Every structure is written in structure tokens, then in C-alpha cells.
């Protein structure tokens, strides 16, 4: 009799365990986080930048290490650019001022103007130029060769175009440069994580940048 009770108890236990597992909801891995609908945010993709060596407007070496630890907005242009570049720097200046009220969200942002005209844009020229936009803007310059690792990785294109109908070859204004006008967001790990395509508008740019930073603060480990 005792043996029978033990056998029946064992069967009941096995049956109970089987029922519990078969009736409980199926355990599946958590679905992947959907990519956010913030225009220009590359997450979960990113593009780690290679080592590079340029010079800032104070004559100091500036490379990948100086990008790491900061959120950097990179714009590529040149000082002899009369139309698009000053307009874009003016927009970045206005964005920076507009974001003063949201410092907790966009803290640690550096604005970096990278010259694609190392021939004319010496550190001194950059320093004088950027003074007219914002004292905190960082200006970088270097030879086309020095720029290559960075521009290749970021997909930035630039090419010289002679000024038409000028025979004044001694003038320094005898060529313009066609170039990409997108602004690139690099995260503190030194990875391209976002891109802002032109045309740039102050309000739209500020809103998207704040949205990107808020999203990344929630979904990225420091």
C-alpha cells in the first residue's frame, strides 16, 4: 500500500510539473529594440573613426583622442567659401545658443570646423575666421593626405574648382572647393553615430540633436 502511494505521488508530481511547463507562456528572447525614427541617427549602427592627425587653430595637435570623451558635431568646409560655409557656421552658432537652455541633455558638445583647404587655411587663418562665429568652435586643418583617413571613413568628398574667367593667378581667390555639407555627429567613443544632411535649419537641427542625445542616453552604455 505504501509503495502504491509513493508511485502515485511520483506520477502526480511529474504530471504537475509537466502541466506547469506546458501551460505556462512560452519564454522567448526579448525582441530587438526597433531603430528610432530620428532622421539622421545611425543607431544601432555606428562607424568607428580611424586614427588621424590634424592641427587646431591654436597650433596644437588634434586627433581621435581629442574627439573621444566628447560629443562632436563636425562640419567640413573652408574659409574662402563665401556662401555655404559661413551660412552653416552661422546656423551652428545659433544652434549652440538655442541649446543653452538644454545643457543637461546636450552637455559636453564640441563644434568642430574641419578645413578641406589646408593650402590656404593655416591655423592662424582659422583662428581669425572662427573668432567671428564662436570663440569655442574648434578649427582643424591639415594636408589632403592628413585629412584622408577621416574624410574617407565619414564619406566626406571635396574637390577644387578654378574660378572661371580669372587670369589673376596671383590671387588667393582663384579656386573654390565643392564639398559635402553634411554635419556628422561623433559620440564619446569616437564613432560616427549620426549625420545631418543639408539644407540645415536651426530649429530642426536643434530638435533632432536633442532627440538623438536623449535616445542615446537611454540606450547606450557610457
Amino acid at each position: 500500500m505504501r509503495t502504491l502511494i509513493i508511485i502515485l505521488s511520483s506520477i502526480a508530481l511529474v504530471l504537475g510539473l509537466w502541466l506547469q511547463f506546458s501551460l505556462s507562456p512560452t519564454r522567448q528572447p526579448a525582441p530587438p529594440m526597433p531603430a528610432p525614427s530620428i532622421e539622421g541617427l545611425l543607431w544601432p549602427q555606428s562607424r568607428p573613426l580611424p586614427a588621424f592627425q590634424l592641427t587646431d587653430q591654436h597650433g596644437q595637435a588634434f586627433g581621435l583622442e581629442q574627439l573621444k570623451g566628447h560629443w562632436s558635431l563636425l562640419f567640413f568646409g573652408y574659409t574662402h567659401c563665401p556662401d555655404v560655409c559661413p551660412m552653416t557656421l552661422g546656423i551652428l552658432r545659433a544652434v549652440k545658443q538655442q541649446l543653452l537652455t538644454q545643457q543637461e541633455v546636450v552637455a559636453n558638445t564640441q563644434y568642430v570646423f574641419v578645413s578641406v583647404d589646408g593650402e590656404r587655411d593655416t591655423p592662424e587663418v582659422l583662428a581669425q575666421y572662427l573668432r567671428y562665429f564662436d570663440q569655442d568652435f574648434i578649427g582643424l586643418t591639415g594636408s589632403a593626405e592628413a585629412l584622408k583617413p577621416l574624410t574617407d571613413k565619414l564619406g566626406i568628398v571635396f574637390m577644387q574648382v578654378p574660378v572661371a574667367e580669372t587670369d589673376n593667378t596671383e590671387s588667393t581667390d582663384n579656386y573654390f572647393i565643392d564639398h559635402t555639407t553634411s554635419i556628422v555627429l561623433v559620440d564619446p567613443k569616437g564613432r560616427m553615430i549620426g549625420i545631418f544632411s543639408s539644407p540645415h535649419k536651426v530649429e530642426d537641427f536643434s530638435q533632432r540633436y536633442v532627440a538623438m542625445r536623449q535616445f542615446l542616453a537611454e540606450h547606450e552604455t557610457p
Partner: protein
Amino acid sequence: MKYCFLVCLWLLCGLAQAAEPLLQINEAWGRAMPPTLKVTALYMQLSNSSAEPVVIKQANSSSCGMLQFHQSFEEEGIMRMRMLDNLTVPAQETLSLQPNGIHIMCLNATMPLTEGSVIELTLQFVSGESQGGSVLLLAPSAIK
């Protein structure tokens, strides 16, 4: 005496008509540049209230070694800038010269391109007529 007065009035009206500029130039501004730079872009609204298109073949200024008509445009993500042979303002329309678009380029400036200074220019039309205009230079960071 009465006829003489009417003839004079008719002549004055004719003169007034002849003196009327071909275009209305509004919101003319340019970008001041740091002292190291001798190039800048000039912008304005050119309105043509006549029944015929107005073609500007050239612009001149004693403040600029050369003035050219340029157009910035984006192509496959790259901002390009190319010279235009002339500017045409269609009849009864306004041509906007603005950043990232059509503009007048001042090259080899002969004066400092400082904020608040004015560039006086003359527009030469294909009709042989010409018209003057003043362009105020705003801060390098100006957005319009």
C-alpha cells in the same frame, strides 16, 4: 501759354518714366568677412514689374576686383558652385538671390569687408541700360 504748360508737363512725365529703374532692389545684404579674406557673397530680391523679362549681363563695383553671378546647388550630397553667364528676372516676377542659391560674388575686394560697410554696385542690362544699388554687409554669422 496753356499749350506750353501741357507740353512741359508731357515732357516731364516722359523724363520721369525714363528715369524709372528697370528693377526694384530690396533686402540687399552681403556677408562681412574677416580681414584675411577678399571674397564675399551678395544677396538681394530683384523684382521686375514690367511686361518684359530683364536680363542682367554684368555687375560692376569699385569695391570688388570682379563681380560674378554664381549659383550654389547640391548634387549627390555635395554642394557645388558654378558661374552663371547672366541673371534673368522674368516679367512680373521676383528673383531671389539668397544663401545656398543664386548670388553675386565679390572677388578680390578692394576694401575691407567689415560689418556695416556698404558695397555700391552697378547692374548692366543687355538693353544697354544700367542701375545702381547699395549692399550692406552684415555679420559673418548672419542667417537670412
